[in-house]
């Protein structure tokens, strides 16, 4: 099985580990680019949201590289995201692409471990548990990487850019749980800034896909880092791939939200996080409550972060 799935920022590596541990050969889609968006938009309904276009572009590019099985998260019900896979599958069929398309909805944990994954990969349930453990560990590692990177970028941008590829390859190479643990120390060392503190800290909240996928958010973390601001994001479980697999994870982020339940797929989640980020970003410093809204879309200019 040559498996592939849409890119998911740094968490792509976590998903890759998961599938590899279950015995699949993983073909990563090429990094997101202008071409990805254009390819996706070409075969998408006009009015659909941006993540659909990018993920479809990812799939088409991965199929060109020889992938024969596509995984796609599904099942978040109030958001259009949960319906992507119907349209994806149809779009690929209409384009005459031959592949096995596997939507992964929010199964119950027991079903996921004992039925669904063993059914797809032909492995015993304990292997699935091991793969999930590895994926979670790796997801935590990528989150740590992202935090350290953002911090380093705000203090020493060129240093961070230099250390980034090496740290990423360390993350990619870590296969066992022990290696992943060791990689954590290496990532910290790579981005060590000798106790220097960034001048500005900015909280970043938003729709889950744009929080994870750096290209889709126009690499706003990098742009802000270049300007000397550390971007803080709340490390909640909802913002890592397990949330896409596990049931009920997405509700965890909503604690403290004042909006009524169900404002959007992720609206109350974002609102709740906004509150805790404000308190996190403001510790010991002047509290600057300056919300800036950025809309994402394929026609948006790169210069958007400068609005801040």
């Amino acid at each position: 099985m040559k498996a592939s799935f849409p890119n998911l920022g740094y968490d792509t590596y976590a998903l890759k580990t998961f599938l590899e541990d279950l015995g699949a050969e993983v073909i990563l889609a090429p990094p997101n680019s202008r071409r990805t968006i254009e390819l996706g938009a070409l075969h998408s309904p006009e009015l659909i949201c941006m993540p659909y276009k990018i993920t479809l572009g990812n799939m088409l590019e991965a199929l060109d590289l020889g992938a024969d099985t596509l995984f796609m998260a599904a099942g978040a019900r109030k958001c259009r995201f949960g319906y992507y896979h119907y349209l994806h599958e149809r779009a690929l069929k209409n384009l005459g692409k031959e592949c096995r398309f596997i939507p992964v909805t929010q199964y119950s944990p027991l079903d996921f471990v004992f039925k669904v994954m063993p059914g797809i990969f032909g492995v015993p349930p304990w292997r699935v548990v091991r793969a999930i453990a590895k994926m979670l560990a790796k997801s935590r590692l990528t989150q740590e990487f992202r935090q350290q990177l953002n911090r380093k970028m705000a203090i020493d941008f060129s240093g961070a850019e230099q250390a980034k590829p090496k740290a990423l390859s360390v993350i990619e190479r870590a296969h066992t749980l022990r290696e992943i643990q060791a990689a954590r120390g290496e990532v910290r060392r790579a981005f060590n800034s000798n106790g220097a503190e960034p001048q500005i800290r900015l909280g970043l909240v938003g729709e889950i896909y744009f929080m994870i996928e750096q290209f889709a958010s126009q690499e706003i973390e990098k742009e802000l880092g270049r300007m000397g601001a550390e971007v803080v994001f709340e490390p909640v479980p909802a913002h890592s791939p397990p949330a896409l697999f596990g049931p009920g994870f997405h509700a965890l982020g909503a604690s403290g939200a004042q909006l009524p339940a169900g404002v959007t797929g992720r609206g109350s989640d974002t609102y709740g996080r906004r509150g805790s980020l404000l308190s996190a970003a403001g510790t010991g410093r002047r509290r600057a409550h300056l919300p800036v809204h950025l809309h994402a879309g394929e026609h948006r200019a790169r210069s958007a972060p400068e609005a801040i």
Partner: protein
Amino acid sequence: MKVGIPRALLYHRYGRFWEQFLAGLGIDVVVSRRTDKVLLQNGLGHVSSEVCLPIKIMAGHIEELAGQVDALFLPRLLWLEDKLYACPKMIGIVDIARMMLDDRVRIVAPKIQGSLWLPHFSAGMELCHDPVRVVRALAQANRLLPTHAQIPDFPAGEKRVALIGHFYNLGDDFISRPMVDTFTSHGYRICTQDELPGKVLRNRDGFARKIRWVYERELYNAFRFLVDKVSGVCMIVSMGCGPDSLVAEFMREEAQQRDIPFLQLVIDEHTGTAGIVTRIEAFLELAERRQARTFKIQDSRLQIGGQGRAA
């Protein structure tokens, strides 16, 4: 006490029910005037430019009522039957109103989750403090809830077109007038979901089972029901409507498979009447040509069959 109801969104379905209910409580009901250009223009300044047209219109209505009334009656519909949700913008409209009005006007916003009764009862208690009167008012207003038990007739030989769109778009003359006028002036009868019984609209078979938005399921079921009874399907989508952008794709595909002409009209505040009329006329021409073609094919089949028998 004067209570205002904006003539937008849910008003187009529950308006008469609300008017009767509030009047039954002994309250002066003020309904905002019909949507027009000025009202829309006033609304535009209050909401993000990315929201859909009905929400912009709603903002205009709220602004219009703000100076005239003591309280605003603005129910928040979270979900109806089968735990199907309304769209996020409709859920959030109460918060938008709160932000627009600050504390200038009191907002009475019963939260509808599944059933209409309890939220309306508590909203009535908020306004009137007399449980007997509230219950009586509710019971009186009850008969004004829209219900259709009968499936309408579809006589043969009549020219019909299905107009699929949310009730708050079709119900608002400002939005739907040019479309309705164009169709009727060409002699078409317009079929919408509003005349179909709830049994049809709440159907849970096939893809409808997977739709998690209450009004999208209505649209989809109406489409499924009407598609083989009409000569064309016209869908009205507000620019920026998330659920529509997705469900419309499924409808388009299905219409294509059945070889039924499908027109998707995307509307926003910049849409001009002329453009809509031209597109509808082209669409009707297509529908008529297609019908003529099918008749011709049937004719030739008859002839061939006739010759076969003769030989």
